[in-house]
């Protein structure tokens, strides 16, 4: 188990990087997912088609392929994702600002992929709102936008929060792929480096890396269970 002590800084560094990646991707995925969800229920058919196509494509392709297109397809489109080098933001999330674009590609891949699931979670929330609510809103003359903003979404949010949480947990776990696509120093990349290049024993490294992920996923999971239970009690 000495590897946990000797290389403690590696594990902590890896955790921080993974954590940063998850925060940024979660924000990106929530924003994009909400947009796609609104597109999917909008009155304009082409927007609905785009939304549906988006969800179909990203829900059905393996993350590996999405990641590949982010890391190797974007450069073929002459983009290094420099639009993510937002001045204030990249001073906090220092990996955003550096010249190597792979951290930015990771954020893009995770956001794009997760957004499809976020969209479905939000849609399920909207589904749970009784139709009478939206009808009543229409009856008092609210437009589509107002209807969503003041009536449907605030209520949808309540029942979407648990599925959304599960989506974010899944995303945290998905971030482990970053290490295989050029993000040096992230948790799973550190694991590989420790076991392969430095020849550290596997089990302790596994324990260390597992803790790194579980610290993020388990509390979130417990929180979601709590919310769910409280809802169930309240509904009785």
């Amino acid at each position: 188990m000495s590897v946990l002590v000797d290389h403690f800084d590696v594990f902590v560094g890896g955790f921080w990087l993974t954590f940063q990646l998850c925060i940024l991707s979660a924000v990106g995925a929530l924003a994009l997912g909400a947009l796609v969800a609104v597109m999917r229920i909008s009155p304009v058919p082409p927007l609905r088609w785009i939304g549906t196509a988006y969800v179909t494509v990203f829900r059905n392709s393996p993350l590996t392929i999405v990641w590949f297109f982010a890391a190797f397809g974007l450069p073929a489109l002459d983009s290094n994702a420099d639009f993510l080098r937002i001045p204030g933001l990249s001073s906090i999330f220092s990996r955003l600002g550096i010249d190597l674009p792979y951290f930015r590609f990771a954020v893009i891949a995770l956001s794009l992929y997760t957004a499809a699931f976020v969209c479905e979670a939000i849609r399920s929330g909207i589904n749970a709102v009784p139709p009478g609510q939206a009808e009543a809103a229409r009856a008092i003359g609210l437009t589509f936008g107002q209807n969503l903003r003041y009536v449907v979404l605030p209520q949808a949010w309540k029942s979407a929060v648990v599925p959304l949480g599960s989506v974010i947990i899944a995303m945290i776990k998905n971030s482990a792929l970053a290490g295989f696509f050029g993000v040096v120093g992230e948790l799973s990349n550190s694991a590989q480096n420790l076991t392969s290049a430095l020849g550290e024993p596997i089990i302790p490294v596994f324990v260390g890396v597992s803790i790194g992920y579980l610290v993020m996923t388990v509390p979130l999971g417990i929180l979601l269970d709590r919310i769910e239970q409280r809802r169930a009690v309240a509904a009785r």
Partner: protein
Amino acid sequence: MSQQQTVLYDAPGPRAHRITLIVSLFAVVGIAAVGYFLVYRPLDENGQLTMEKWGPLVDPNNEVFPLVWARLRDGFIATLTAAGLAILSSLIFGTALAVLRVQLKTLKQRRFVGLPDPAAWALRGLGWLLNAVTRFCVEIFRGLPVVITIFFVASALPDLGVDLGDILWYLVIGLTIYNGVVIAEILRSGMEGLPGGQREAAHAIGFSSFQTTRMILLPQAFRIMLPALISQLIVVLKDTSLGFIISYEEVLRVSRYIIDNLENPIQVYAVVGAIYILINYLLSKLAEYAQRRMARGRKTRALPTQAAPPSIMPQAGPGGASVGVGADAGSTT
């Protein structure tokens, strides 16, 4: 689509129709412009649209066309083999785990009144302990990235002296641990969501607790959770692609060899991605079909999980999205 009524906005009148039409036109033009300037032009300028790059994949007269597709076919067979095995073993393992957890829960609630006090306390303690251990394992493996599980199964098992020969089995085990746990949770919540009367009736006609689970609860849980289960199976199929980490020759790994030889990564991945999307899309349609059939099948009483409120969006089946998403949410890749 436009015929479908929705409660979110009024049936469009002439003015709304005009606005919709104009917005639609703008949207279409906008998409076309984005597609042309941000995708087509750069691709063309970088020589990504030449026949040299695409030929081996799309032109049957190309000399390497049969070889490339033979490789891809081998890759997809390997992917589907691994996925099939993983699905089968996850279902078996998941069902067993779900039954175990439900049994342990009833065990925990039993008071063993017929037994002397110390024995009763010991049994209750044991029940509690087993319950805690299984719960702990479920939480751990649900919370870990499946990549990490696969990676460590493949490197730790041989270290511990377990040699399975083929890399395929490490991938299957890695996938089974994760997805089995998820499936177990799906089935368990299905069983626990059943009305209490089911269990009580089974007890009343003299079924033991195990018989109740096996013959009454489990079949119903499978039925109710079928859409969620199918969604999880899609997740397994997609996760098979993670085999590349332990150099299992599934389709993405095979693609890389093709790319190493022909240097057309974007083209190969585009084709492979399209095939993946097609397969998974068909599977998800199957899930929707199963869901619709079930919604039609049992009208007599609304089971708790099906008892979703009428939906705002008529295009989604009743209660469908929530169940489906619940399962998808557990997905990794």
